[in-house]
């Protein structure tokens, strides 16, 4: 079975291997794959750019993905995405300047009953609200984003607990 009739079939698995190992498909990696399969580099990029899984730039240290599946949408996934955009100062598909965080939207993680869902690296956070999410982000990576309200004079966090 491994000696497949058509080694073109190996293109996507090879790209996936690279993506997993290096976090993105570099120009060098694409060239290597093209040589290995004896196909044009443009073919490799043509296929890679079709699929959402493949990135062409090095990723940030922590991956934050907001699920915007239907269940998450009706339960406020967009609110979470906006909160993250403000917190991290980037839009979906971008990486923070300090390369600490990637922000992405995903169509559905299949945990719809726990909507809204956000993943921070491998951790799946179910039924999150913006406050819970901020805390998770801070936990994940010494976030440079100020904890919400920190810039204010009094600390209402303490008041909130009363």
């Amino acid at each position: 079975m491994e000696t497949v009739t058509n080694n073109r079939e190996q293109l996507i698995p090879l790209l996936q291997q690279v993506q997993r190992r290096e976090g993105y498909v570099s120009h060098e990696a694409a060239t290597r794959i093209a040589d290995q399969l004896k196909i044009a580099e443009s073919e490799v990029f043509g296929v890679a750019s079709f699929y959402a899984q493949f990135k062409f730039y090095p990723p940030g240290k922590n991956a934050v993905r907001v699920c915007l599946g239907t269940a998450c949408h009706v339960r406020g996934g967009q609110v979470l995405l906006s909160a993250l955009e403000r917190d991290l100062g980037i839009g979906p598909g971008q990486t923070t300047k300090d390369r600490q965080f990637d922000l992405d939207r995903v169509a559905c993680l299949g945990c719809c009953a726990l909507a809204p869902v956000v993943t921070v690296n491998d951790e799946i956070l179910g039924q999150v609200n913006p406050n819970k999410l901020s805390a998770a982000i801070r936990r994940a990576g010494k976030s440079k984003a100020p904890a919400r309200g920190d810039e204010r004079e009094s600390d209402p966090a303490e008041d909130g607990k009363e």
Partner: protein
Amino acid sequence: MNSAELAEFRQSFSGKKAQASKRWDDLNTGSTPVVYVGAGSCGRAAGAMDVIASVEKTTERIKVKARVLQVGCIGPCYLEPLMDIRKPGLPRLSYANVTAKKAAEIVEALLGRGEMLKPVGHFGEQAFDGIERFFDLPMMKPQVRVVLRNCGIIDPEDMDHYLARDGYEGFLKAVAMQPDQLIQEVEASGIRGRGGAGFPTGRKWRTCYEQKAEQKYMICNADEGDPGAFMNRSLLEGDPHAVLEGMMIAAHAIGASRGYIYCRSEYPLAIKRLNQAIADARSLGLFRCFPNFEFEVKIKEGAGAFVCGEETALIASIEGKRGSPRPRPPYPAVEGLYGKPTVINNVETLGTLPNILRNGASWYAGHGAEKSKGTKTFSLVGKVKRTGLIEVPLGTTLRKVIFDIGGGPINDAKPFKAVQTGGPSGGCLPEAYLDKPIDYENLAAAGSIMGSGGLIVMDQETCVVDIAAYFLDFTQKESCGKCTPCRVGTRVMVDILERIKKGDADEDDLDKLERLGETMSKGSLCALGKSAPNPVKTTIRYFRDEYLEHIRDRRCRSGVCKEFITFTINAQCTGCAVCLRACPSNAITGLKKEQHVIDTAKCIKCGVCRSVCQFDAVEVKSP
């Protein structure tokens, strides 16, 4: 394989099964207590792994020997994490919404002190100590579990559990039949494809069977991409052997010696368990167990393209190409993977097959409605009390599913508005359709589709224009771009819908949307484009007044479309300052323990205050 080898295989299989049954019985009736934790992706997201760690720590601390098993998802996601304990002498007891701390308490009480904390249900046959049977819970009782029969019951990584529950018996029955006879059996069962379109499975097989070719392929479509649907993930994670067995049955019917499972890469646990199942089935010799049967199967991971759920796009993707669909005919059953006859069946269709073979076609046809036989799984999510994975006979009404099983809208004060069936390819059905039986024909007549089984419940706080825009935004992003009606049509639809949401549209735009929808349905190359307008068409058909409100009155009665709403804080505010702290635009002011105020000039209508408020004090108003 000759007849002597065949006899030898049969003997070794029954030996293995006897061994498996012994282990299974020991698990269920033996003297060692067993702790079962629902640890599918959803259970893990809810904290199942912490529960397992806590159980293991506790049993060690109280010095009690217990087995801890990871099982798949049994369905009621709203109760997760779910932990069951079987202590000798007692039925299997089920505990819901278990945290690490709660798990430790339960285990210590039951296995340490012999004291039973009240469970949510039990798995015994008889009434027990005032506790309800798990399968008599309101969410479970109306269900008929055929394809989900093992989910949450067995350890999906332990093949013995599957064998003990008559696993591969269906396949052994099938492989002893002539392909033609096997196809007849499946035709007689009336099963139709569970991936969405509902094409009769037997007829698809027959077309492929009749092709003469040296090589044929059997493909399992596990590219479950509909946002809001997770039936296939749960089945693959909870009972992977059932899907594999189904593939082997189909492969025998059509004469395929090679199979592929095309699974989304977003489902790593499903992939891991499938790999395990394949390795176990191979080592048991099942792939080469009969004369004329030889099978090998490989998993292909998707790379994040919704359109690859379409069969011709899926084939292109397996071949290492861009996942663009091509015109049909020729259908894959005639010209599929590498130009060879290929059958592509959905995960649920395949998972059902072993049951049909084991119990017979007429048993299966005894479930369901006249033209839609059997049972169907649905993921019941959105604004409903009891969310989760369910299985009901086709022909059940939407009302029964949403209100009896799902418990109705999540908030009694905010009534049911609509339900989306069939994901982005489906339609949004209003209250008037709740009493229609769910079957392929009724859903199509209503402008929707069965789809793979996502049911998203919406209440009065869901705006239908926003939902239509949401789905179109999704299909627009996922459109492969090959054909114009889909590529341009989805883009234009999104633009018009966005204008309606902003109050920049006029009534002609509704006609434009409807005309465009017709063009896309007729002219698109594949089902993605053909069905993409369904959410728009159905919402206009059933909720035209809401569209008109947006256009004429600049009003969104659901309080979703930002241009038309204002946020205010009412007297229920306790002055806890949680919203004040969370507001990203510093628009909220107020003294401690006094009602806060939102400065509408500063408010960016992000809704964060509302989602963090514990007291329902933040209100959204539209004129």
